[in-house]
């Protein structure tokens, strides 16, 4: 005779493992974001736009046989009339390389996030450096402060202590009421009502005001790919500032041999042909600083993106103006977008033709914790560079 047992509890035994699985997916999302940030589709979009991030399922690998002619499998034809040579299932799309991900049956998650959420993901552990307490102007910094408890909330904010306290209280009450006897070893599980979550209240904190200058070379030598990378980097910087500070002013300056101040939209979308004179952009920036953003009340951030192919005749002017800007700025970043081939050519030139000292090298003496140089050649390098500039682990 068999035994029948009806379960009374509503134990959700896989909850912890599901949570853990979700965490791994979250991590995978974060990893994919690095690829996504440089995708054209999100550049220059507004904050509420939703972005789909494809995340590969967390795969469990084992030794398996590949799909090849020698690996024959067997199936049943059911009622169908079949003959050798018949095709089964769909044609496979040509796969991209030998990645361990193009397998049939692969799980893919598509996670939809808004730009704002994306920024939250990316920037939550970064902070603008050197935010000196200058004269307070417009800017308020948003912070969240822990305050009190609430009944509902997300898992990471679960207050174990408060929850435990409530369970103990309930348990003691149950013992008094005689509904629970601790002697007989029966579990006294947590109840939904026990759960307490830490509450967060937003607070506006006074903070100094900041202005960011985005300078970009849009001349002919900046090819499409390079502009694309520059845009991606500026996009991140812009999202970062927008996310973190209420009233950060942003000035966009695009330059060829001459410079002009442009709108955000123009900055990211318009390209021009012509030569390269970086000094013109710096001159314009100095002018704008003088007119609109006095260093005594503004934190100044300057980000320059170019391909390093400045006209040599212009270099002395650049070297003269950059220290001025540096002395007023909290952070100046000079970024060269280079292609793999050009970096090789550079090495070659350097060996054979030593007099052609690059602007990059001439800037070397300026570098310190305020002035930084960076070279990137692929979208994968954008995020590490970004972290290097703004991570707390800076120094």
């Amino acid at each position, binding site marked *: 005779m068999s035994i*029948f047992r009806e379960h009374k509890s509503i134990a959700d*035994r*896989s909850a912890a493992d599901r949570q853990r699985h979700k965490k791994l997916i979250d991590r995978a999302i974060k990893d994919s974001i690095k690829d996504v940030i440089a995708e054209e589709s999100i550049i220059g979009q507004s904050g509420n736009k939703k972005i789909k991030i494809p995340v590969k399922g967390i795969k469990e690998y*084992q030794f398996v046989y590949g799909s090849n002619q020698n*690996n024959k499998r067997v199936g*049943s*034809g059911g009622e169908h009339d079949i003959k050798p040579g018949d*095709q089964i299932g769909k044609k496979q799309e040509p796969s991209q390389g030998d990645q361990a991900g193009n397998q049939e049956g692969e799980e893919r998650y598509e996670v939809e996030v808004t730009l704002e959420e994306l920024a939250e993901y990316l920037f939550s552990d970064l902070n603008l450096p050197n935010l000196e307490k200058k004269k307070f102007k417009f800017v308020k910094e948003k912070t969240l402060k822990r305050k009190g408890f609430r009944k509902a909330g997300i898992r990471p904010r679960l207050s174990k202590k408060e929850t435990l306290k409530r369970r103990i209280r309930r348990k003691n009450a149950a013992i008094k009421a005689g509904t629970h006897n601790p002697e007989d070893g029966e579990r006294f599980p947590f109840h939904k009502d026990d759960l307490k979550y830490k509450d967060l209240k937003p607070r506006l904190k006074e903070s100094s005001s900041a202005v960011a200058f985005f300078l970009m070379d849009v001349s002919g030598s900046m090819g499409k790919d390079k502009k694309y990378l520059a845009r991606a980097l500026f996009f991140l910087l812009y999202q970062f500032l927008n996310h973190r500070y209420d009233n950060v002013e942003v000035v966009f300056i695009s330059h060829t041999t001459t410079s002009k101040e442009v709108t955000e939209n123009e900055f990211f979308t318009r390209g021009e042909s012509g030569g390269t004179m970086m000094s013109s952009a710096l001159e314009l920036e100095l002018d704008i600083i003088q007119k609109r953003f006095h260093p005594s009340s503004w934190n100044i951030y300057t980000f320059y993106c170019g391909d390093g192919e400045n006209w040599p005749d212009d270099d002395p002017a650049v070297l003269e103006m950059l220290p001025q800007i540096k002395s007023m700025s909290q952070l100046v970043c000079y970024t060269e977008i280079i292609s793999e081939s050009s970096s090789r050519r550079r090495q070659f030139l350097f060996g054979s033709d030593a007099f052609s000292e690059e602007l990059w090298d001439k800037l070397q003496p300026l570098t310190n914790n305020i002035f930084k140089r960076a070279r990137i050649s692929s979208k994968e390098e954008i995020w590490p560079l970004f972290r290097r500039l703004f991570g707390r682990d800076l120094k």
Partner: protein
Amino acid sequence: MKDWSVETLQEWDKKICESGKRFGLDWYPIDYEIIDYHEMIGAMAYTGLPTHYRHWSFGKSFEQTHTRYHLGMEGLPYEMIINSNPSIAYLMKENPLSTHLLTMSHCLGHSDFFKHNRMFKHTDADNILVRFKSAAKRINKYMEDPSIGIDKVERILDAAHAVKYQVQRTPERRRRSHKEMLEFYKDIVSSDKEGKYDDFDLEKIPLRPDYNLLAFICEHSRNLEEWERDVISIVEKESHHFVPQAYTKIMNEGWAVFFHEKIMNDLNLPPDLQIPFIKLHNQVVRPHVGRVNPYHLGYKLFKKIEEESGIQACFVAREVHDDVSFVRKHLDEKMCRELNLFSYSFKKSRRANTIDEISDEEGWASVRDNLLKTVGLNSIPVVRVESVDKKTHTLHLQHEHDGRDLEIPYANKVLGYITDLWGDEVKMFSIVEDEIWEF
């Protein structure tokens, strides 16, 4: 609408058990847990075990199963039983009485199979639950240990799971430890009169190729901490428990279907139970077009044996065979034709799966042989430990190539996991597109 109570189930259980005995079944006592849908999916995620160690893959499995049912890709779950004494089986609250009756009859078949098939000899059904419980406790202890923590434990579990099916292919035999093996070879070498073993190196590791990767690593890695060895051996022991089921999927399901049909017909069900039963039964044994439904194939084969040689021959078959020998012996041309089986493979030139042979006069034997290559553990590549370098401690693995090439990106990932466990360098050899390939 719930059309049953525990009392009804008990009454029917009595009849089902009596019927099962009349047919000659001999099973472990069965404990039925009556649970709801979520618990059922939960139980399935943990392969039915009431207590099991934690790992994210079970959370993933839960989500996947849930999604499949949710999207209607599968009907409601109805059957889940584990190989223990007593056997633990699950009945899902949401199912109607007719489904429960089928499940209960089906479970007698499984439990009888667990008790009698030779592959299950070493699964230690009496103590299995206690063992799993203690394993879960230990893993939990490591996860909560501040000096270890969940991340480190997960790293070992991730890696061990990747090779959990790399076990010796003879589950009915116990693996001998290195010490036992050494005694064995010492005896051989000292009693060897013909000089065949003059060159035998008693210091080499392993003394003969080892197919149980996890057990070997536990025994010989010089980089593992005690808790890590314990975690690896927990995974290895669990494999031991489940490998016999992998070896007998077709037989085990076939046997259970074969008898649930007999028992249900024996019960003289009223039409309001009989009709839904027939519907569900037909669903269970329907051929899956493009695949092989183990329930269907196993059921058909036992039917055939019964017709040709009588029910006693069925009982003998359920005791002595595993899927490979069972299919090889009993799947003949007539049956292949009846099931309309074919073999297929992926053709690079056409970028699609294409039928190679069908079950006609020339093709059927080849179809059967190809089927044999995918039943039991034959769909899992065999990788053995060849040697360990005495100086560098490099682990040399050999894939036993049987014509089928490994999926290289996967193999690379798995080798990464093996390196995580072994702690020294790992090398593996195989054949890819007719060339020797070193991983």
